């Protein structure tokens, strides 16, 4: 039983990290209806800046720099690419972000080389004892950050005109412009925000219990895709739920690997995707996503 709880808690805490990444997808999807496959490179930049600057300026300042750097890169991608490709279908735009990702990840991994970079976080390998369960302090921090950030976004989308402007632009940028929305600012803002979120997510991805930032970090970002889809690509709360579901699934399937071995080895990696497929079969727009509307 205590193993189960430990796995559950572990899953929730990893889920928080996935949720942060998934939230980045969601923000961009809401603002531009583009699935951003370049999110991995935003993660990498955020982490890279933190890793390179913390010995010089200390962790918190480095974190700020990382957030700023990733936000700037996000804004740059929007400005240089997404904005200029406005006439194309969103599927094509998604493929463009793959191209962007390819460029950035190639260059960044070259920069990182084969090193494993430490991020200099204050939590180190501290572990909190919750009853019989051990939880790394970094994961508690991730959970708290995810909860705060996601609540903030839920509120922002609902109650500020920024949210309305963003969604209006996403749907029809020409008409949104007629409402006085500065299209560039809104979607650039969204990309910058997504970049900032990615930097925060990168932080939690690269601190204990993982050894540090290296070129393989981007692979983890893949798991945030089922998280985002499962919750519904346009749902902020869905990102959180999706993150948790993926985190817990992965943790349980990994932890009970022995017992599940009749299903084949390495199930932990496919389980998130299987869960996603099942959810999509029942709810094609994810758990909390809005159904695609159609009327003629």
């Amino acid at each position, binding site marked *: 039983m205590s193993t189960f709880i430990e796995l559950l808690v572990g899953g929730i805490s990893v889920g928080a990290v996935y949720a942060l990444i998934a939230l980045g997808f969601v923000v961009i999807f809401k603002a531009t209806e583009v699935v951003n496959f370049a999110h991995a490179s935003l993660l990498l930049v955020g982490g890279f800046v933190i890793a390179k600057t913390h010995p010089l300026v200390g962790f918190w300042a480095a974190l700020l720099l990382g957030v700023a750097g990733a936000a700037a890169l996000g804004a740059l991608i929007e400005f240089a690419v997404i904005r200029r490709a406005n006439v194309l*279908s969103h599927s094509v735009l998604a493929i463009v972000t793959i191209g*962007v990702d390819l*460029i950035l990840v190639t260059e960044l991994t070259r920069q990182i080389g084969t090193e494993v970079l430490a991020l200099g976080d204050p939590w180190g390998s501290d572990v909190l004892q919750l009853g019989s369960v051990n939880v790394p302090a970094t994961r508690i921090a991730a959970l708290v950050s995810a909860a705060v950030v996601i609540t903030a976004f839920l509120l922002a989308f609902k109650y500020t005109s920024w949210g309305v402007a963003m969604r209006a632009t996403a749907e029809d940028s020409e008409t949104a412009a007629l409402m006085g929305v500065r299209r560039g600012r809104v979607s650039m803002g969204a990309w910058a925000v997504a970049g900032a979120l990615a930097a925060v997510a990168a932080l939690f991805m690269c601190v204990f219990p993982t050894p540090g930032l290296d070129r393989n970090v981007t692979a983890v970002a893949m798991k945030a*895709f089922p998280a985002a889809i499962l919750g519904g690509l346009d749902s902020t709360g869905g990102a959180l739920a999706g993150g948790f579901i993926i985190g817990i699934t992965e943790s349980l399937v990994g932890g009970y690997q022995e017992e599940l071995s009749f299903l*084949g080895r390495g199930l932990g990696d496919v389980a998130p995707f*299987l869960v996603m497929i099942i959810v*999509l079969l029942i709810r094609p727009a994810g758990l909390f996503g809005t159904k*695609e509307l159609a009327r*003629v």
Partner: protein
Amino acid sequence: MSRIVTPLWWVLVAAGVVVAPFYLDGIWLQDGLFAMAAAIGAIGLNLLTGATGQLSMGHAFFLAVGAFGYVYFASAPSGDGELDGLGLPTPLAAVLAVLLAGVAGGLFSPIAGRLKGAYLGIATLALIFIGHFAMSNATPVTGGHNGRPVPPMELFGFAFTDTPEPLVIAGVPFGALERLWFLGVVLLVGAGLFARGVLRGRPGRAMNTIRDHEIAAGVMGVPVTRYRAGVFVLSSMYGGLAGVLIALVFRQTVPDYFGLILALSYLAMIIIGGLGSVAGAVIGAFFVSMLPSLFTRYSDALPLVAPTGQEGIGAAEAAQILYGLAVVVVVLFLPGGLFGLFTKARLRLARRSAPAAPVKHALTPTPETRN
């Protein structure tokens, strides 16, 4: 004027293709074969993503099904009982492998018929991971992580191998690559013509309308869900055929190869070449699959690219960056892809040579798939 030029052009291309194996080194033939296989796969993906507007990020899975399907059907079980196989005649095995890929696509049709856009894209991403899981667990079929050797194709007693008897034509030793070259050309031409027929015929129009206006398509009598699933199956079979050819060229299939990178490169191909057309897929496939080898081989002649083993941007990295860049540039500046550029240039040429001739309307073949 163009009535004479066009056939002439084709005759030249055909001649080039036939004499190529007599002059090109193995490595070029091999690159060419990889590109042909990629082109077949890309044509299939273009039917799905370009013409029907269904984003798929799992195309590599169907290549794997084709490749391993062929190996399984064609190989005899290994002596130590570790590897299974049916030992069927190789052409039959190839056909069955393609069908198997189609069946795999059909099994996915509850998803493929109902989802679209980003949701379908990411759902198909699951295929990559599920495929990897299956391949590394079904060891008797796939040989597990190491893959297994590919039995060479044998058509009417003619084997596509280096051995046994050295076949020498016009002083050139005809090994596996030289022989496969012609098989690849035949398969590619066949696959291309078939796809063109589909696109220009009744199914193509239905596919385009599903892409542009799903409801209208239904009301006009197109069974949308069934068509979507059908195109997915067809595109899977193209993937399967590409997989068979790749297996034959590799001579050893390895599960790792059929990963996400491969799937994404297929998307890059159809974007770079031009969405929705057969020629676009072929051009894109050659571009993406030849680029890295060109860079590697000519790295010393290229500025900014460091020769293997030296500091700086390596050939592989440069190729990665360039093809990422190509995707971006094409989308931003060449909405019809390289093929669009080509048609535009031809139009301009035609206009120049015959200024009086009425110019046909050229709408760039970029699909507007916002719905």
